[in-house]
């Protein structure tokens, strides 16, 4: 019984962490799908979400909801500026060069945040209290419910956007074949911009909803970004259910591994899975292998 309770707790904690990885993974996939770039500044969007919310809340004295909206909007603008200044001007650069640019951008953003807001870790108050909720012998916080809720909303939203709106379909078209998309009158440049905007918004939202649990500082983005990347790889870089499942599986395995095997191997487990998938199933866990027609 005791063991069962423990395992339930591990799984619930893991799912909560996994939901965050899924959100971040999703924001990775959005950009990858329309540009072929892995945006390593993704973790920084997550960090900006949390840091800006705390700034709006404490310094500008906005109410929580307005602070969150302002932080997400702010990060989105940063995503937009980033695309305009660093990605757009290099039209013919190879994806590798662009990826390196995103790494540079992540270092820049981290450095600026450190100079502007200092190096201290800061906490955001929980959205609806800190009283634990008991579920089947395990406990979770109201904030976890927020995380699950927001994650589900974002996933449903993404699904609707990518499959049922013109812009979403146009973005998918760009990911399949930018030249053909261009020929049928889709502005590829605009779609790339849109993907950065969306991705920054989703990433920062993830940053906001975890800040009450995990606290935030200028350097939290690195690890979260990597874990989100892991989730996206597991899902085969799709912007759908695959990435979400990837994130949830990753979170659960980490938590089970830390609890049942050894906590020292927690990160090792995540990156071992990443390597394993890159070796064995580079197309992701849930995708069929793609055949390229010549």
């Amino acid at each position: 019984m005791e063991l069962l309770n423990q395992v339930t707790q591990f799984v619930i904690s893991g799912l909560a962490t996994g939901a965050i990885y899924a959100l971040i993974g999703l924001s990775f996939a959005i950009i990858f799908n329309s540009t072929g770039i892995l945006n390593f500044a993704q973790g920084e969007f997550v960090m900006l979400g949390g840091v800006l919310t705390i700034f709006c809340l404490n310094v500008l004295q906005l109410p929580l909801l307005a602070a969150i909206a302002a932080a997400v909007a702010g990060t989105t603008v940063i995503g937009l500026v980033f695309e305009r200044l660093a990605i757009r001007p290099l039209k013919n650069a190879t994806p590798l060069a662009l990826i390196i640019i995103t790494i540079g951008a992540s270092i820049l953003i981290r450095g600026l945040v450190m100079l502007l807001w200092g190096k201290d870790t800061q906490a955001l108050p929980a959205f609806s209290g800190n009283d634990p909720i008991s579920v089947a012998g395990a406990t979770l916080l109201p904030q976890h419910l927020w995380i699950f809720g927001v994650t589900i909303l974002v996933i449903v939203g993404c699904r609707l956007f990518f499959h049922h709106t013109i812009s979403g379909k146009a973005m998918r078209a760009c990911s399949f074949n930018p030249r053909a998309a261009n020929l049928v009158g889709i502005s590829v440049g605009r779609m790339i911009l849109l993907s950065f905007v969306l991705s920054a918004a989703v990433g920062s939202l993830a940053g906001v909803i975890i800040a009450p649990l995990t606290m935030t500082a200028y350097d939290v983005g690195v690890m979260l970004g990597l874990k989100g990347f892991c989730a996206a790889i597991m899902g085969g870089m799709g912007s759908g259910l695959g990435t979400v499942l990837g994130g949830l599986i990753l979170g659960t395995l980490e938590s089970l591994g830390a609890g049942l095997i050894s906590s020292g191997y927690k990160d090792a487990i995540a990156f071992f899975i990443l390597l394993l998938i890159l070796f064995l199933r580079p197309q992701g866990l849930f995708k069929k292998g793609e055949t390229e027609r010549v």
Partner: protein
Amino acid sequence: MKKLLCTVFAAFTSLCLSTAAFAAAPIKIGALFAVTGPASFLGEPERNTAQMLVDKINKGGGIKGRKLELITYDTGGDATKAVQLANKLVKNDQVVAIIGPSTTGDSMAVIPIVEKAGIPLIACAAGSKITDPVKKSVFKTAQNDALAVARIYEQLKKEKKSRIAILTVSDGFGSSGREQLKAQAAAYGMQILSDDTYGPKDTDMTAQLTKIRGSRAQAVICWGTNPGPAVIARNAKQLGLQIPLYMSHGVSSKKFIELAGDAAEGIRLPSGKVLVADLLPKSDKQKASLLAFIKDYQNHFKAEGDHFGGHAWDAVMLLRSAIERGGATPAGIRNALEATRNFAGIGGVFNYSAKDHAGLGKDAFVLVEVRNKDWKLVK
């Protein structure tokens, strides 16, 4: 004619410059602090404190009429950089003594350089290996981890608790604490039932705590620096962990209470006396130094002085007294430092000797508990 004029002018200016330099001849002191990077929570208050004190000493006329010149470099918590900068201080800047570095890793890396050059170093890091075994020119001001561990174990023994769980961060600070926790367990009759770790950037420790909840441990000891322990405090509250939670001196600042919020209530930790300076009895030898440090720091930086800044306070003040007694040469300072007795600083009462370059006893730590978002002494 023009050439002659030039020569005369050059000779004249160089003469002026050299006499000017001779008249002022400040005593050069080097400082290596991790002002940026992961250990910046140590380096920043240390740098602030050292600069504040040096300015204060200079304003008061310096040491025996000679001003101090503090040359500070930022190691970024990177041992390779620390080595380069230590070389720079010794060879280019020709300092007579060095304060810092902030972390144990940086300190161990620069020891060979100062030993070879014979420049006294007063490290502000806690690792006991810095001064054990004793090195000729290396001293330190931060309290050993071993003393903090002993303080916690003493309290547990007093409460007749012997089954413990430890949860340590997987970096230098945590692994050094873990070593000490395990090494001293037998001496205090402690039985470690669960030995877990977490990563410095981990965001959820419920897995480890669930495991601990399932063991028969009577207390949890967590060894880490912010923000990990604050996450652990919150997770423990979420899980409804009933047993007492002990933290290390690594989180003994108000920041921890701020981060952990309500979850901090009831948590105990060993701390330097600076946190509870106003609660100390008048008879306490350190009280005067502590209050002076806290007041100065508050005036200069509008922030609360913590015991990290205190390490630098101790280093500068020890150095000042050593220069007063032994003269401003590396050898003189070294010998005078070693002869320091009963120096009541921020970290404790220092008694250096040929066999002990750490200089502190167990009384350097007090055990405090968080009550109503403030510290209370545990008797």
